[in-house]
């Protein structure tokens, strides 16, 4: 990236290629669109501040995902430490999730399950890779996936109808 033009091209390509991925990852972790947008923006600004020399596209993607997950973790800690922060109970599930029944069911899962489900089923990462990414051992990731599937099965096969109107 020697010229301003090169930079512009790089920025455009990296945003077009990865911004949705970063946003979805953050959304799965935080369950909040505006927060996910904030995280996405911060991740890319960090990228520009550092401009690491990536060895490959995969390296770049993994870096972005890792930074995103770390920022979400940090954000969640802040929320725990700041309980007075605005909550989202008054937003209906449809407003919150609104993408479809499976997505809605996934978003019902605890955060650690959501992230694993997203990375595995959408991003296509394997258990070994997710364990590297999240810093958990493979058994833990397997267990999280197993439980997530079990819970999804329960949620999607019944019991949610009564819940749909509840805040």
């Amino acid at each position, binding site marked *: 990236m020697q010229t301003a033009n090169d930079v512009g091209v790089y920025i455009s390509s990296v945003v077009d290629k990865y911004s949705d991925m970063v946003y979805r990852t953050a959304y799965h972790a935080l369950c909040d669109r505006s927060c996910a947008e904030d995280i996405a923006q911060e991740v890319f600004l960090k990228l520009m501040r550092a401009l690491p020399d990536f060895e490959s596209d995969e390296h770049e993607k993994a870096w972005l995902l890792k930074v995103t997950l770390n920022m979400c973790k940090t954000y969640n800690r*802040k929320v725990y430490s700041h309980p007075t922060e605005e909550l989202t109970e008054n937003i209906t599930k449809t407003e919150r999730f609104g993408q479809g029944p499976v997505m809605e069911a996934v978003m019902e*899962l605890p955060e650690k399950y959501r992230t694993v489900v997203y990375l595995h089923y959408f991003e296509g990462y394997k258990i070994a890779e997710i364990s590297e990414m999240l810093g958990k051992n493979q058994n833990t990731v397997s267990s999280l996936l197993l439980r997530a599937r079990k819970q999804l099965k329960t949620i999607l096969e019944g019991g949610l109808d009564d819940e749909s109107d509840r805040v």
Partner: protein
Amino acid sequence: MKATEYKNEVGSLKLSDEFKAELKKKMLEVYEERSSEKKEEKITVSSFSKKYGKYAALAACLVLVAATAGVLTLRGLPMAKSAAPNPDAAMNEATQDVTAEPYATPEMPDGPLGEGAEGAEGADDMLAEGFDDGIPLPEPAQVEGAEDGYQDDLPEVDEVENVDEDIAEDAADEETEGSALQDGSPYSRYASEGYDGDYNGDDYVLSQRSVTNAGSATVYDTSAALLANSSPVFVAPVAPAGDVPAEAPNDNVEAPASADGSDAPSEGSEEAEEEGDYGEPETLMIAESADGAVENTLASFEYYDIRDGVIAKLDKIALVRFTIEDAYTGYAEVSVNTTSGVTMDVATQTLYSININREYLSNESEDADRLLLNYGTADYQLYGRPVMQGEYIALVYENADGVLEPIPQLVYSVHNVNGLDIAYHVYCEDGYEVDPGNTNMGILPEETEAITNTANNPERYTQKAAVRELTYYLRRNIMRMEPTLLNVSGEEPEDESEEVPVPTETEPEPSQPAETQPAQTEAPPETEEPVTAEAEKTVYSNLRAQFPTGLLVFELPEPGLDGLPKVNGISIGDSLEDAIKAFYLTKYGFTPDAVITLVAPEEEGGRSVTVRFTDGIVSEIVSD
């Protein structure tokens, strides 16, 4: 349900074009700033180094010397202080995380969600090489210690605020879970026998999603019949055996119709149990305050909803631990010393005589006999609200009749499991499950645990936490609201400024053994006499223990600041048993009201701390 469906749904989740355009613009700005900063830095450093190079080198040497001296000084400090929040911790973590080994993007799997994910294992060959060291770091975790005034006076702040500890505990949790699963257990650590509490109170403060094993329970017509047939009435609770939910032992069930006329669940109806479709009356979730102004009608069971919507509106509150002494089921049976009597719904409520032995918000031991009115009758045990028996912790307020009432969502049954006091959350509400993403920690229905207080009093609890951690969490969180504390003992309120009570005596009684040594210290002082068998048999009410180097750790509040001290991790509210273990005094016997004075070795400052017990609980820790 297919994975492709999920992918399609997730795929439709995109950032808007406007957002992306704005993002690109900001990124370009950041890049330009970065470039200009680098140029300035280069120029500045270059000219500076020419002029002041030798001075800079000298200053660097001085800084190095000062830093070395500082480190040595710190290492020489005799006493350990409370761990301060470490804002660098998250940065360190982030450094490790971001610089961890990367991974490559594999191809997307196409199988349905219901199929095994294990097939995706074994792709280690896709791992690429490591990240650069110079890559940017995520934001460090915020340390909010300075933002609110009351954190300083609470010892548990570090548990939440100290990111280092959080990270360590996270790692420990994962290790535990991982190793448990490696052992072949399908259950999470939260349901295991070895569970000893969870550090994050948000996870367990509110949680319940099941009712009882009502289908297999014996049901009596009246509370009196229940109490009469439960022998003994206030029997010690039966601890759960391992991970397997205990079943109520009596299979002879004849469930009566519920109070609202709806059919009770059929015997052993799995469907009814799983869905909890018992038609629990709405009144069970409504708690009116003394003046009727506060109604707990929240449909959401988030802890913060309860706190802000109910607790914040109550005049005076107390977080008490109490034992049920007696139960009264109707007006005829009630003989209470109040001017107006007690207003209660005899169909759904029971009046109890309780003995309060601890109030956690003020952190004081109590011995107060009070009346408590709570939902639950013999009939309502079917709906998860049996007559209370045994020991509980609850957040209570005083109603117009002078009777205590608990916040229904904050009632915990206390059981000693494997030597550890565990609080089980007993609140349940059909159709209003707590958001599992926030509270149930991913516990599956089959991982829930049943505890049977008596053979005829089945309750199913799904959440548990070590009493110590639960009460720390609640206390810390509620005290942020600066509530007016309810004086449960009925005595004159004490000065609120007295966070740590001043001891009346700090010296050991002359008649008691003046000096002895910890019984199980690794390196007992040479001057001390060996522990004899006779000494082991002695029961002490007052003991002065001189510790050898390195075995006594005081964590005392900073001078001028409020706070609670800890000695070897023991603080006010801990049990005598825990304390004597922590003080290495397990070979000695102590009375429940013992006073132990712990003396640090001279090289550690010779400080002494007096720990006073009341009814087997640490009630005071006072430093000299």
